[in-house]
């Protein structure tokens, strides 16, 4: 199981992450899970931020309600922009303040986000039109 | 130049490092995982191989007594051979040659 998990509210996210960076923690990754609760037909999401120092792990858990905009931690840890763009693509959750924003075209072309709907039963494909990738915004000051 | 000359001379007289394929074929090792080879007589049509196959390339029908295998979907993992309770599956000893044509 995961130990050393701290649950935080969305307002405290940047402050906590900056605190961990000041303590010398390294950003490992961010996991996003769609929680299967019947909250008025919309799904909530569970964000877990993983950090590492001296081979020991520490986690932050954040519950994101459907439709919320999450502040990006790429202003604290620059390398987080890649994983946050991936979550934008796959889950359709918008982030605010991304260092480089691919606007949903990092992995996929424009279309519905795969993990935000129910899984497609096997045998049925999703035909997405082959739109050429749009250029991302140029990097802002990290 | 003095470092290179012995190497060049050695390379001139030593045999080729490559094999003259397809005239010379290196035989596969004993434990090679080839295609699953099925023995219809010992098969009990339990369907365990089809259940466990990760790429869903096997179909077993008890009623009609058929065992179908899609070689293009197979990933050569060997799970069907391992889990067969009656031992009617084994690995082919040679790999399949590339398919060509039409």
């Amino acid at each position, binding site marked *: 199981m995961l130990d050393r998990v701290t649950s935080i509210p969305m307002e405290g996210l940047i402050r906590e992450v900056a605190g961990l960076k000041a303590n010398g923690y390294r950003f490992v990754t961010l996991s996003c899970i769609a929680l299967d609760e019947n909250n008025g037909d919309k799904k909530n999401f569970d964000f877990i931020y993983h950090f590492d120092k001296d081979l020991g792990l520490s986690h932050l858990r954040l519950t994101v309600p459907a439709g919320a905009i999450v502040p990006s931690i790429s202003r604290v840890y620059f390398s987080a922009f890649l994983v946050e763009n991936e979550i934008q693509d796959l889950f359709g959750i918008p982030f605010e303040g991304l260092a480089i924003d691919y606007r949903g075209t990092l992995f996929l072309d424009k279309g519905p986000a795969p993990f935000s709907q129910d899984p497609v039963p096997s045998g049925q494909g999703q035909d997405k039109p082959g739109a050429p990738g749009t250029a991302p915004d140029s990097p802002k000051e990290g | 130049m003095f470092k290179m000359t012995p190497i060049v001379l050695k390379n001139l007289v030593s045999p080729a490092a490559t094999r003259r394929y397809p005239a010379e074929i290196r035989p596969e090792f004993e434990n090679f995982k080839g295609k699953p080879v099925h023995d219809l007589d010992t098969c009990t049509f339990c369907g365990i191989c089809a259940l466990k196959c990760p790429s869903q390339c096997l179909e077993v029908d008890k009623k009609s007594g058929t065992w179908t295998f899609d070689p293009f979907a197979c990933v*050569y993992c060997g799970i069907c051979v391992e889990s067969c309770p009656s031992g009617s599956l084994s690995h082919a000893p040679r790999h399949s040659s590339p398919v060509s044509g039409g």
Partner: protein
Amino acid sequence: MRTIIPFGPQHPVLAEPIHLKLVMEDEKIQEVVPALGFVHRGLEALVSQRDFHQMIQVVERVCGICSMIHAMCFCQGIERLMGIEVPPRARYLRVIWSELERIHSHLLWLGLLADSMGFESLFMQTWQVREKILDIHEATAGNRIIVSVNTVGGIRRDISRSSLDWILSQLAEVKARVKEIGPTLLEDYTVKKRTTGKGVVPRDQAWELGLAGPTLRASGVAQDLRMLRYEAFSDLDFEPVTETDGDAHARCRVRYREIFQSIDLICQAIVKIPDSEIRAKVKGRPEGEILVRVEQPRGELVYYIKADGGKHLERLRIRTPTFANLPALLFMLPGHWLSDVPVILMSIDPCISCTER
């Protein structure tokens, strides 16, 4: 005058399908913007269609070069969630196969780095040495590249005593050959000119960017996840290989020395391997959430697994080391010439199929 040169996804010296938009002023790079998405297969979404046993085969195919280690990480996660104890012999066999994978991956990488510099004969020599390792794979596990030997609870195939001795003799030949090739890589004038001082990452920036693996160790941080002492690494003796320069040549040296470290680890494991069964009985289904980390040839591999007691897992999240090393490119490349791009890109050992899954 600024121009934008698109580099990739298909390029004669580029081994991986990544697209880089290089903003150039004359021949010097000013900015880099990477673009991915050319090999995205959506493997994480397959958890809803394959049960947790079949997922091992899916996870093995995230990357061909380090497939056994992906499967090992996944099996470790499931085993910890279900409380399964892996028998000792299986733990040693996993170490042997994962270190063989590490040697084969580093040799492959060495060849590709030489090819990106245009040094094709070195490329062919290293890949010839690598053939010996692939022969070992085929003789013991049955497949050359994607060795499907992991299962929840242990290993599917055993290696006999005579095979273990044969592996030792083959590794002695590999070691001798790599030692012969070593001076070309480390001291050759042209290789040094093209790699020294390129793509320097200072130690603090490496830690802050969250780099992983040899890219991090070449900047002076001694972090090797095998020190977590998983599998049989708790009985084996080794130290992380580090260098301090942080440039592409330092990363070469780290990987070169790691080949010898892996050969030494396999020899230790073959001597110490105990006799026991190779597979534990698996009953039931996993429940809970867990994060597992192992050391892949490219760095730190992280698996987050969440299960709810059913046949299918609820969520599988894979973070591969190239995912962590890619943002470093945005800092490594500016200021260099256009011709340095393939060398610097290869020096972080990219594996885009891992990154995009």
